């Protein structure tokens, strides 16, 4: 049962990635695009965890954890750059 659930979940997140791509192509402004990439990071984190669960291995869990912890930094930096013209003031 869990295998089906995992396969379904993975398919959903993969679909989400495709939608991300669609949004990236059609986004009207830069902030939309940055947000899209941020969403993409979330989806990737989910995919890494799901694949780990499916393979019953914890070895890539740290990667997901680290991505969760640091993934937003790029988003913050991009936003700061757009708002202020520089990331460190």
């Amino acid at each position, binding site marked *: 049962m869990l295998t089906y659930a995992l396969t379904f979940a*993975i*398919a959903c*997140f*993969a*679909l989400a*990635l*495709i939608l*991300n*791509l669609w949004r*990236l192509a059609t986004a009207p402004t*830069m902030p939309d*695009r*940055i947000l899209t*990439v941020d969403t*993409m*990071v979330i989806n*990737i984190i989910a*995919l*890494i965890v799901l*694949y780990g669960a499916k393979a019953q291995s914890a*070895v*890539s869990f*740290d*990667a*997901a*954890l*680290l*991505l969760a*912890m*640091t*993934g937003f*930094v*790029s988003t*913050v*930096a*991009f936003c*700061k*750059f*757009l*708002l*202020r*013209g*520089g*990331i*460190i*003031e």
Partner: protein
Amino acid sequence: MSLALIAALPFLGALTPALTQRFGRGIATATVALFSAAALLLILQHVPAIMAGQTITTQINWLPTLGLNANFRLDGLALLFALLILGIGLLIQIYARFYLDTSEPYARFLTYLMLFQGAMLGIVLSDNILLLLVFWEMTSLSSFLLIGFWSHLPKARQGARMALATTGAGGLAMIAGLLMLGHVAGGYDLSTILGERAAIQASPLYVPALLLILLGAFTKSAQFPFHYWLPHAMAAPTPVSAYLHSATMVKAGLFLLARLWPVLAGTPEWFWIVTSAGLITMSFAAGVALFKDDLKAILAYSTVSHLGLITFLLGLGTKAAATAAVFHILCHATFKAALFMLAGIVDHATHTRDIRALGGLRRAMPISFALASIATLSMAGIPPLNGFLSKEMMLEEAAHTAPWVIPVLATFAALLSVAYALRFLVYTFLGQAPAYAHAPHDPGAGLWLPPAILAALVVAIGLAPMAMAGWLVDAAASATTGEAVHAHIALWHGLQPPALWMSLAAVGGALVVLGLYPALRAAWDGAHKPDAKAMFDAGMGWLTKTATALTQGLHNGSLSRGFAVGLCSFLALGLYAYLSAPTLPGTRALTQISFAPVVAFGLLMTAALAATALHRKRLLALLLTGIVGLILSASFAYLSAPDLALTQITVEVVTIALMLLALNFLPKTTPRKTAGFRKLRDGGLAVAVGTGVAALAYTLMTREAMFPPISAFHLAQSLPGAGGHNAVNTIIVDFRGYDTYGEIIVLGIAALLIFALTESLLGTRWAVQPDHAAGDEGDAHPVMLQTATRLILPMAMLVGVYLFLRGHNEPGGGFVAGLVFAIGLVLQYIASGQDWAAARRRIPYHAMIGAGVLVASATGIGSFLAGRPFLTSNFTHGHLPPLKDFELATAALFDLGVFLCVLGAVMLALDALARLAKPQEGR
């Protein structure tokens, strides 16, 4: 050890002038002379053993696997040269002390002189020919410094450059020749090579090796047609000329010819090349010397001529000729060094070296006149001086050599040499004295004593050759020929020897030539003569132009040009490899792929293509590259490479932060640069190379490796060899620790460079103004961000420490940990600003880099204490309840070095760019 110490002494002496110069020139000279004298004494201590026919050797292994060892040998030939180098070296030191003006940088001169002396001594004492090559190159370099010592004079600079280019090029050829020789002989030690005569002369490599070695020897010893550099090197201070061109530098080529005489000589190739080069040089240079007016130029051409004489004798290939060559090396060094010094004395006294403006100095400078007469007459080969003896021996050898042209040319050269020597003496010291601006007078003893000692030797050797020099010539000739030699040198051999009559003919002819001199001079001045310097300059100009054209053709600074050249080479080589070898079908099954990875890879390719298409919008391109990095990190995780995934994730974040900082100073769009055909061409090339790389990767992945891959070793040895379960980490910090060591140093240097560049820009008008026009909306330092990031910092550090500690056994390690720390700190910079972050920084980032390199080095050196090679790791298992068992590995300490270096480098670069990006107030 003793020989190595002797060879090292001049180099040690070269260090002293910098320290002793404050005590005055006398003390500085005495100190370096002490080193030369010590070396001389140590050499002399070996004389009895060498007289008994022994060879002293010292062997120190350096790189035994390459055949490169610091092996030294001292036999008769080396003894002769060592005595000349050190003995005349001592006289030169005294002479230079009084010759050079007080305004000259005397300490520097002494240092160059000692470096040169050490290099020369190294050449003659080397047993290993690779070691000899090292010293050979050192003489080229140090003589460059000496010849160009008066670097404010264009002539000195040009002369030095010419000498370096010529002897350096010859040295390159000689490297190839000696390598061939060692290859044929089966070893690079002279003791091996000298015993392999038959094998060497039978080898097909004999002729190429001979030609290359002769090229090296002829350029160094100024043999025609490479003689041109020597007269131009006369721009050096006179002590340098006296040293380099009488006893040392130019004799190095002859030394090599004599050293390799037993294995190279005796073949027709050797005979014809060496003899004719020597004979042509000897007669041609003597002829030119006759028409020169500068004292030093006459001596320069005379030196070239005498070097030709010695080369000629060595070329004959007989034992007696080699003995004569060795004897003339000794004689020439004594009278020529004295003559150079005397030319310097005359120059000092009269402020001119042009013999047309000189004359009548015999009354004003009687001591110099007496010394010059002895040395000049010896150079002319007048009995009873030593030059006569060796010239007689030369003529005797020439007389017994067919064809007839050889003795005729030899007599002719002797004739010219008598003529220019007499002209040198008569024009300078005899005749009417012109009106000198200052009345010339003899110099102090400091200047005339060194040539006087040499002149005494000239007379002593001439009168009692067997007692004074017989032993040395016997030893040196025996070592040169490899057979016991007992020379019989005497002033009078009776009326039978043809040499006597040839000598008389030479003297008579010389008087005739001098009588006809005005007519000859007019013909010479009227004749069209090729200018060596112009030819050399033209040659160099052509070389420079070709090199520039080649360089400009390959990379003219345009990145796309450089890429195109590189990629085309890759493509061509790849195609060649593919087409020239049979292709085996792939045997590995393809792995299955599911839906999500297909989507991810599709995303990766789309992002990559989009970044290419939209690269002119820089911010968007950066965002798209971010997506590529993201999918790449996920791919590493998916393909079971957690270490790489962790590294990629953190590297991506830091890269984007640094790129955004850099983007601060750049326009937001790239101008359109390529269009039309060029775009098509570049695109086609990129696609071709990309396809090639993909095909190569596919081919490799679907086939079994031809050779067992090294990964199996690393996996098997990770735990027993390095004490860690994580093979990736043990490879980085242990198996390939030396690579990592180099990499962290490079990383540190790169960060320091960024710092230095931005620092030098700060506060200058060149500082690029950051482009803040994009906007100043929102808060500079939003409170929410500040609060959140300050909470994140300790957590990030905890994760970093965790990743670091477990790195040896599970994914993690110093590199990732450093980046995680760096990200935590970058967040503080972004949220609270550079000022805030810098004010709270306790440890400077430079220190962090330095500490990292030091910790890594100390770990590496620590293994010396355990008696093992650099960076050998050691580990033990520890128990500390209630923790699980853990390892204590020195590799973890090394990893700490990596951590510090990475953290310091990233933060230093970031901080430097952030400082540069700050608003301009206060600058």
